[in-house]
């Protein structure tokens, strides 16, 4: 059974590369308006799962249902455009910060009106609006990537290790923007991270992935304070789990 407010329902999902199973999820539901964190060590299949949720790949087996539509090769562009990802290593266009932020609007043939300036102010980049995007710092680059994703007002925002390798200032700023955006707009956010503390700070529900499988999903408090699975408990304690 799906919840009425489900954004995604994943069933029997398998993704294989050259015969190797990298994602094997029996069932997973992501609810509208929540911040759902997927934690797990590197190589657990978290990023692949995000690519499937962003329709960037089609599953080898099983299905992803998005807003009641089974995701396949003929998903309308309007539907695809409801979901976007902020990647761990953003690749920006060789253009100004402003042009990068306005890029998603240009793709939709929308005017880069006051929205671009407003979002630049929110991510603290107004003073760098006309600077070449490839010359800003790593933290600023990630904020440009976040701004270009937020400006198109996606229904679902996928965050793939968005603060890995960033300094505490940028980590704090990005988390604050994400939290505020979720509260103000009700945007569904799926956060992939290996940082349990970040998941604890941001997410309402959390899932643990290991070797492509979802081991446990629960409300954040239960997940961190009273996990059902010993592997979750070990991961939360910061022990290496494979």
């Amino acid at each position: 059974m799906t919840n009425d407010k489900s954004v995604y329902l994943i069933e029997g999902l398998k993704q294989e590369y050259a015969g190797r199973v990298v994602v094997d999820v029996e069932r997973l539901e992501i609810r509208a308006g929540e911040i759902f964190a997927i934690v797990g060590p590197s190589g657990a299949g978290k990023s692949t799962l995000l690519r499937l949720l962003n329709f960037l790949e089609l599953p080898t087996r099983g299905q992803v249902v998005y807003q009641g539509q089974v995701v396949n090769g003929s998903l309308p562009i309007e539907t695809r455009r409801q979901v976007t990802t902020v990647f761990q290593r953003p690749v920006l266009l060789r253009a100004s910060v402003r042009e990068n932020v306005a890029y998603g609007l240009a793709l939709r043939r929308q005017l880069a009106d006051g929205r671009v300036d407003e979002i630049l102010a929110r991510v603290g980049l107004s003073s760098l609006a006309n600077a070449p995007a490839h010359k800003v710092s790593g933290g600023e680059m990630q904020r440009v990537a976040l701004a270009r994703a937020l400006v198109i007002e996606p229904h679902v925002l996928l965050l793939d290790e968005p603060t890995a390798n960033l300094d505490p200032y940028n980590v704090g700023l990005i988390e604050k923007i994400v939290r505020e955006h979720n509260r103000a707009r009700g945007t569904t956010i799926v956060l992939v991270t290996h940082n349990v503390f970040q998941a604890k700070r941001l997410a309402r529900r959390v899932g643990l992935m290991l070797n492509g499988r979802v081991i446990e999903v629960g409300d954040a408090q239960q997940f961190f304070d009273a996990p059902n699975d010993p592997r979750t408990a070990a991961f939360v304690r910061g022990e290496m789990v494979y």
Partner: protein
Amino acid sequence: MNELTRGFFQAIQLIFSADPALYEIIFLSLRVTGLALLISALIGIPTGATLGLSRIRARGLVTALLYTGMGLPPVVVGLFVYLMLSRSGPFGVLGWLFTPSAMIVAQLIIAFPLVAGLTMTAVQGVDPALRVQVRSLGATRWQEMWAVLREARLGVVAAIVAAFGGIISEVGAVMLVGGNIEGKTRVLTTAIVLNTRTGEFSLALALGIILLALAFVANVAMMRLQGNDK
């Protein structure tokens, strides 16, 4: 050294002499090279971009052919075009032999592999993650291709510069298919050959200096295009 000095001053005199014959040669050189470059860019850039982005099986073979084409001896191209356009050739009915059209075709064949091959290399040099990220932002396939091409624009301009340099200075092919006919198919390079053969070294040098100056101005203009993006 005297010849060089004389050639330099004669070049300046020639430029300001308003000699219609000289300007005709310069304009024909620019027209033939410009059109060949334009057509090769219109075909070569999309070809290079498609090859750079696609995963077709024959890509290796096509790439090898393009790289071979980049080293084609112009005189061989001239011979090929000559045979194609001669009366007995398959395109003889066009009547293009010894006309600027034949010269454009020959230069197009020389320029195309350069533009397509170097564009392909430039496109392949763009971070592959960019494609995924623009698709994630909602780009269609065409928008995705355009984004990659935009990112590769420095390399694409370099491809055009290389092709321009290759054909503006080329003599073998245009000589064969154009015939170096005065007032009709004489361009700077063929005029230099002619004047050298007739012992008019200063004039040949002067024309060479004009040719170099034209190439320099065109390259500076294209470098400025690149420079704006740095």
